[in-house]
């Protein structure tokens, strides 16, 4: 295949934010990766079977805040956007409580304090539907293939790079230069069990492992903690010793097993 463009699939229905309400405060929460406050609001409106053009703001705001609190309790990192929305809801709610003043012109309708929010929700829903349309299109396109590589492909191809490639490549050089590890956004969390497995293999293969090297390889705090726990565990359960040859010198994990 000549640069068969990467094909995309998307599991539309499993990735949306889902909040399973159990009985009372016992809620299970599955937030889609980057679902935002508008998603949460739409979800709550649907759940309350409310009319989007006449949102029972007090009830929805209450529910919204309950979910926010819950997410905080569950230690889910809350985007600032969620808090901003909470403030907006409270503001709308308080405006709704004010007595409705009569406007200068008789009969002219008052601007509903909810209007701006409703407009935003409607606008956002359109793009959600558009995303779904794109998903369907790309699904169809996945059944289409282009020709295999032919001879002329070898001596061809325009400069197959965009400005962004240039920037991105430059950025990589810089970070390589500074010996910085660029944090990947979707790094998979490594479990303690996996870490232990890796660690065991390395120690028993190499017999020694410099702890500083090991920790250097970790990409974030969480991995560091996992690595640290793995070290403690392996020292406790295996014939492995922690050795420091000189004060302030590097700490070495050494296998006490006899090399085969």
């Amino acid at each position, binding site marked *: *295949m*000549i*640069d*068969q*463009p*990467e*094909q*995309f*699939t*998307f*599991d*539309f229905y499993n*990735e*949306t934010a889902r909040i399973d309400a159990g009985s009372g405060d016992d809620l299970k929460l599955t937030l*889609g*990766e*980057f*679902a*935002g*406050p*508008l*998603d949460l609001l739409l979800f709550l409106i649907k759940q309350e079977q409310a009319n*989007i*053009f006449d949102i029972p703001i007090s009830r929805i705001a209450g529910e919204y805040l309950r979910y926010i609190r819950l997410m905080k309790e569950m230690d889910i990192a809350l*985007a600032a*956007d969620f808090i901003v929305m909470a403030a907006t809801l409270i503001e709308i709610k308080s405006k709704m409580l004010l007595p409705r003043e009569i406007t200068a012109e008789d009969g002219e309708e008052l601007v509903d304090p909810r209007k701006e929010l409703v407009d*935003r929700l*409607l*606008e*956002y*829903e*359109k*793009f*959600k*539907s*558009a*995303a779904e*349309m*794109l*998903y369907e*299109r*790309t699904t*169809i*396109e*996945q*059944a*289409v*293939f*282009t*020709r295999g590589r*032919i001879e*002329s*492909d070898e001596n*061809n*191809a325009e400069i197959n790079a*965009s*400005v*962004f490639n240039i920037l*991105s490549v430059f950025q990589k050089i810089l970070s390589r230069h500074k010996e910085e590890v660029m944090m990947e*956004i979707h790094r998979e969390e490594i479990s303690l069990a996996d870490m232990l497995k890796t660690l065991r293999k390395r120690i028993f293969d190499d017999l020694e492992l410099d702890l500083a090297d090991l920790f250097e390889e970790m990409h974030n705090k969480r991995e560091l903690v996992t690595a640290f726990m793995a070290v403690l565990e392996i020292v406790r359960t295996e014939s492995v010793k922690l050795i420091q040859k000189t004060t302030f010198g590097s700490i070495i994990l050494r296998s006490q097993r006899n090399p085969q």
Partner: protein
Amino acid sequence: MEQSRNTAALIAAVEALVFVSDEPIAAKTLGEVLGEDKESIEAALEALMSEYDTRESGLRVREIAGGWQITTRTEYHDEVRQFLKTRPSAKLSLASLETLAVIAYKQPVTVPEILEIRGVQSASAIKTLLEKRLIVTKGHKETVGRPMQYGTSKDFLIQFGLKDLTELPSIEDFEDLIQ
């Protein structure tokens, strides 16, 4: 190029060029290479397309991303996939698809404008879309902070099977779906 080509020879030449081009080839390019006018090229492309359709070929000729391309017919995707051992891959997240939808309809559009619509930061989605070349930068917006603007790429058209951006359904059409 010689002008004395008959229709069949022109269609055949067009077919050969559409085949060798590794991306969709524009009718204009075909005209330039073959020294033929726009009408002849378009007629040849139409003829070629219906020829593939009528003989129930495993392939078809189609217009996409401002050009013409030969691809397999969707009916045979099972067989092709089995042979190439490809699986549909590389998931786009909901965030990426939503962000892509906003960019497709609002381009050129800046990160703050996308935030305004989605109500949530879209930075990592934009990065993914750039890496997959579905979007491209479109210069800075001449406004406070000169934010970068983004738009969809040619790869976007190809990936989503579009001739051009006007083929996207109007965003207002989605309103009806909502309520």
